[in-house]
């Protein structure tokens, strides 16, 4: 740092706006150059004195009142649309009372109708899925297996190949509207291989891929809806093992050609690890 550069950067240095390295270079120069050091000290005292002596024009109290009343006038004009200045307080209160009477007065028969519809809806919503569930599970199982097989066949097992959960998780979080837990289970014999986006049950889902000796496990994850509460259930379909469980946030479907016991172990280890996170 020479004198010219120091002079140029003097104001930034005084204002504490330079980076640490430049600061150090200037300090070094000031220790070595008496002239620049003098100039710096003079400038520092001058700026301080001028700053203190500059009159500060505080707002007079009537300005505050003027502003507050003009803002109230503004919202009064906005809500009655007439441009006639009205004191805002009574107006707001009145409008509010009117809107309340609309809701609780004239529209009560609509409420009754709506309540009846809700009642019907609750019944339909509770009963229909129970009747449909076996078929739906079968259909979903077929979809899951198809997805699992496709992922192995089309050489598209992973979109993001990494055994590091801290790589896979952010990648998935960025692509989805939910953030599934990602844990590496290599110490339990199920190394994390990567993650993939998939589409199941009419929505994008996360697929986590784990290895088991020479086999692969696809773990499909998506947010749990309110109609998916249920205990873990295992099924076998077309020679593949499927294991389904639900926690407070997510639906899990593990699909693989490993045996049912391995899949159960996988599930237990996965839950153990995620509960620790």
């Amino acid at each position: 740092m020479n004198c010219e550069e120091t002079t140029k950067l003097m104001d930034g240095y005084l204002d504490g706006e330079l980076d640490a390295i430049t600061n150090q270079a200037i300090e070094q120069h000031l220790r070595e150059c008496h002239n620049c050091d003098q100039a710096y000290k003079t400038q520092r005292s001058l700026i301080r004195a001028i700053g203190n002596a500059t009159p500060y024009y505080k707002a007079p109290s009537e300005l505050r009142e003027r502003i507050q009343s003009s803002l109230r006038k503004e919202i009064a004009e906005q809500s009655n649309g007439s441009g006639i200045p009205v004191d805002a307080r009574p107006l707001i209160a009145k409008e509010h009372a009117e809107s309340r009477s609309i809701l609780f007065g004239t529209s009560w028969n609509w409420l009754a109708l709506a309540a009846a519809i809700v009642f019907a809806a609750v019944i339909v919503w509770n009963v229909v899925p129970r009747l449909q569930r076996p078929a739906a599970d079968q259909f979903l199982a077929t979809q899951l297996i198809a997805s699992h097989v496709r992922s192995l066949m089309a050489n598209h097992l992973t979109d993001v190949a990494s055994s590091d959960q801290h790589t896979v998780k952010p990648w998935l979080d960025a692509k989805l509207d939910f953030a599934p837990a990602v844990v590496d289970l290599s110490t339990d014999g199920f190394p994390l291989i990567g993650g993939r986006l998939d589409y199941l049950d009419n929505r994008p889902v996360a697929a986590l891929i784990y290895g088991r000796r020479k086999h692969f496990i696809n773990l499909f994850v998506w947010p749990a809806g309110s109609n998916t509460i249920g205990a873990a259930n295992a099924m076998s379909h077309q020679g593949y093992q499927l294991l389904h469980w639900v926690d407070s946030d997510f639906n899990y479907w593990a699909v693989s050609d490993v045996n049912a016991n391995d899949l159960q172990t996988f599930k237990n280890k996965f839950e153990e690890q995620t509960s620790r996170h």
Partner: protein
Amino acid sequence: MALLLNAEHAFGLEDFESTAKIVKFAIVPKKHEEPDQSPKEELMSFEAAMLPHLDAAHNLARWLLRNEQDAQDVVQEAYLRAFKSFGGFHGSNGRAWLLTIVRNTSYTLLKKNHAVDLTTTFDEEIHGSGHESVSPATILEHAEDAELVKQAMDELPAEFREILALRHQEGLSYKEIADIAQIPLGTVMSRLARARDKLKECLAARIGKEK
């Protein structure tokens, strides 16, 4: 709410009409609670966020316009403008946001009044002479004279007055100043340095005259 909306998925398409009604029913009470309160509520949150910066707003306008009446009119107008666009403000720096509006409103008035000192085209002949004999030490002696500093500040172009007020009085960072004055960050330091130099020159000229 969540429960009802989920029901929509369970119905399938044939129940679309009744689903639509349910959704309507479910949303109506909420709609009536929120927007009706909002003008008043919005005003209250606006005032809570922005009135604390009234002094800063007034000070900036006062330095820019050099006239108390204009400053008050501009600040009132700026608060109205700010209130109207408050819905679009999601930042955390309310002071810088408000000061930007105050500054823009001030410049609108300055331009309307054909203020000649908007930029730094500055008469070096008048302001650049007669102070060579005044040493920094002498300036320093007089630098605490508020009236003298005020007169010297008022001689400066608007963009110098504004940057000095923002830095010396509000203590704003270069980044904030760059946002308010709408100049690149790299320009802040050089403009501030020039403003300080000019202020010193104006002080020196006045001290020289007094002698």
